[in-house]
């Protein structure tokens, strides 16, 4: 991916945001977080140095999965849960393409859970945008695998009995190399994070905390609202100390094997004691702990949480193919048919 960006940059006319806007009516609810995500993606695509014909947007089923119809790229709106498998096929068939998968918490982690974890494990070079509104929207209000325990929904009138998934923990547990988080009401941050995802080789997962205005309004309010967000979100940046809160007076500290929220100046804590973010650390320990941080006890971690470089599945496959072409005596099907034991009559 990185090389592609550099290679293409000077050769091709720079597309604009308008190049990616489709002529179809966008049918998401007014006030839905999806609108902001669409707009951010339209802003990011023209700046990646990729030909506009080389983008493919793939989705499954759900509100978010209508996304491909609203982008003027190549696109497939697939079936429920299977976007990761479809995207895998697209990428392996043509590794030069920039493949983006749009999915929701149900599509990705319930019906499509298997494909999701295996795509992540294989490290196929696709970018997964996971819209997490912690509810089933298109089927009108049942709980999802990320709905908080005890939460009342149409299919859990007494509250759910089950533990939710944490997307970051799941991705990193599935051998994921890249995980980031953004929120729908901060487009600037979202654009920044999407750039990082695009630059990374291998599977990237960007969890976007997204508001469903109809069935789960304000589910991310602590993290998103103007009044509470300073204390309840931290925008992580590589190489910087993990400071947050008004005036950056609070920080995250690693005590023993646990993270802890501290205030600068209290109990002799100074900035030197605060944990410095390292997205490249192959050890998943701190990255998982950061992903798990939940308000109000901790600020939710936003930004790139983990970015570890390893060769991707598609690169490996291309290399083995090139190697086999060089080494094999079989150059075409006629050779193949005549290989091994044959006899003349």
């Amino acid at each position, binding site marked *: 991916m990185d090389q592609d960006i550099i290679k293409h940059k000077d050769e091709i006319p720079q597309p604009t945001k308008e190049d990616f806007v489709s002529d179809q009516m966008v049918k998401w609810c007014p006030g839905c977080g999806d609108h902001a995500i669409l707009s951010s993606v339209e802003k990011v695509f023209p700046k990646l140095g990729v030909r506009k014909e080389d983008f493919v947007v793939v989705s499954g089923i759900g509100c978010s999965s209508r996304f491909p119809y609203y982008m003027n790229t190549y696109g497939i709106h697939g079936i429920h849960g299977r976007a990761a498998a479809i995207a895998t096929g697209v990428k392996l068939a043509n590794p030069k393409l920039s493949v983006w998968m749009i999915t929701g918490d149900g599509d990705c982690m319930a019906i499509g859970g*298997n*494909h999701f974890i295996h795509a992540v494990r294989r490290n196929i070079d696709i970018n997964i945008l996971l819209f997490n509104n912690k509810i089933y929207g298109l089927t009108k209000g049942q709980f999802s695998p990320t709905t908080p325990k005890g939460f009342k929904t149409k299919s859990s009138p007494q509250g759910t009995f089950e533990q939710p998934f944490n997307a970051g923990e799941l991705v990193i547990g599935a051998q994921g190399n890249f995980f980031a988080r953004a929120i729908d009401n901060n487009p600037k941050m979202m654009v920044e994070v999407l750039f990082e995802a695009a630059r990374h080789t291998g599977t990237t997962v960007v969890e976007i905390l997204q508001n469903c205005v109809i069935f789960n309004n304000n589910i991310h309010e602590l993290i998103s609202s103007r009044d509470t967000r300073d204390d309840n979100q931290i925008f992580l940046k590589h190489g910087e100390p993990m400071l947050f809160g008004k005036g950056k007076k609070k920080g995250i500290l690693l005590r023993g094997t646990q993270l802890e929220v501290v205030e600068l100046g209290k109990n002799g804590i100074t900035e030197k004691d605060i944990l410095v973010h390292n997205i490249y650390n192959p050890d998943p320990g701190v990255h998982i702990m950061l992903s798990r941080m939940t308000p109000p006890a901790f600020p939710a971690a936003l930004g790139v949480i983990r970015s570890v470089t390893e060769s991707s599945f598609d690169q490996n496959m291309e290399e083995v193919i090139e190697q086999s072409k060089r080494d094999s005596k079989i150059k075409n099907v006629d050779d193949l048919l005549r290989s091994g034991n*044959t006899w003349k009559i």
Partner: protein
Amino acid sequence: MGTKRNKPVQEKDDVVIRFAGDSGDGMQLTGSLFSDSTAFAGNDFATFPDYPAEIRAPQGTIAGVSGFQVHFGHTNIHTSGDLADVLVAMNPASLKANLKWLKDNATVIVDTDAFVEKAFDKAGYDGNPLEDETLEGYRVIHAPISEMTRDAVHDLGLENKVALKSKNMFALGIVLYLFNRKLDKIYKAFEEKFKSNPLVVEANKRVLRSGYNFADTVEAISPTFNVEPAELKKGLYRNITGNTATAWGFIAASERSGRELFLGSYPITPASEILQELTKHKELTVKAFQAEDEIAGICSAIGASYTGSLAITTTSGPGLSLKSEAIGLAVMTELPIVIVDVQRGGPSTGLPTKSEQSDLMQALFGRNGECPTIVMAASSPTDCFYSAYHAAKISMEHMTPVILLTDGSLANGSEIFRIPRVADLMEINPPLVPPNDEDYKPYKRDEKKLNRRWAVPGTEGLRHRIGGLEKENIEGNVSHDPENHQLMTQLREEKVNRVADFIPEQELIGDSKGDLLIVSWGGTKGVMLTAVEEMHKENQNVSLAHFNHINPLPKNTEEIFSKFKKIVVCELNNGQFVNYLKMKFPEFTYQQYNKIQGLPFMVSELKREFYALLSK
């Protein structure tokens, strides 16, 4: 060899030989080495392995018996044979399991060392079957195979267990003698197979020769047999299984169409060898992807198809069930994809290592909505090559999914294959859209075939979206318009029906009219053909219509049916094709003959049925 051949030789037209032993006894290797020697002897032949579902079932039990059958002759061989002329039984269990598959005066070669008290019990024999009336009427060759194997290699310093591993080659030595075969080709095979272990090569050579010499000294092995070379069309030949032929057919279609081959698949018996074979051929840019499940197998293939690959997925019945929804997506998006179903006994897990034709209805109708696909069936191991090739061609040229049905018997069975030249195969012309084609609309169709065109990501000026939601005709935007849905449903159906204009007419073997038309489809062709040819020799007026194209059916099907007094539909299921025919052509009366035992038809039972129908 230094052996004097002074025994009488009896000429035979064709012979069926069955090697049977414990699943660890190496019967599959023995059988395939015998096949190699048969190839060099110039015979036509077909083989079939018969192995248990368990990898190593308890030693010495019936459940653990593994067999390999070879049918060879100087006449044309269409099947791996009904009943055996020769049985090699390495232990009592293999004797017990296979005795019912022997001809009346068959030759039975047994390892007497394995016929001991404990083994009778495990096999379910009360006493020693070699000493009571069990084998009355057979020519029994008592060979102390284990002991003589040990003797043959005693000075090589091998452990007892290792030495005994070669005992299958002693049995092979006896059989090679029995059929007047040479040993040098087998020696060569040892040298290749065990390249890295010269000691094993030497041990196998010695044991093989020891078996051969033993046979020379045993008076009971007389006469020996000779099968003259077959009169086959000139050319270069090889032995090939159905699964390998399927894999190669797709590689050939990829080369001829200029579309890279992509396979998305999940291992399942008896289809896994197609995945294993394709994954070997990266040198021909075959991209074989072992997915996390059946659904990912087909969905990755759909992604690759959208991206311009010849995309296929391979599976067996249970896997086809899992792929149903995704096949619907391919039908809706009108993308080419070939789904290979190597049928096995069902339902559910069923009989995984046995063969059946019971997925036909699933292939035709097992999806939500009005969801037509092309359905084809291969009719022999070598036909798997041509069927795979043809399925790929039709799928790409008509832009629609094809389900190709093979079965466990074809998949693992082998026959000789006259090697074609790729340049002689039919052309394949996928309807690709050139860059910046202003005329391009996602659902604008070819007038003749009704296919939409293939606009591949990366191509300038053709960006478009497709998906599982109903689309507006021509423009391809999402549409919930009632009339449009009806129109699109009819177009998808008509597109599949029009394939009938591009496939060969149905072939008929025998007279074009008469008393009895025998109808069959798919993997049973060999045995159907043998039965009908035998009845023709017996001056019976019967004809055979064996189908490879199920949906659409060949255009002349109805006309063929109309010329016969009786029609009997024979299939290895409970009557699926016959019910399909009743739906398509209700004006005819159909008889049916079905077998659902996980076993192929036998020529004898077919003929019995046909004679009975003729006399009614």
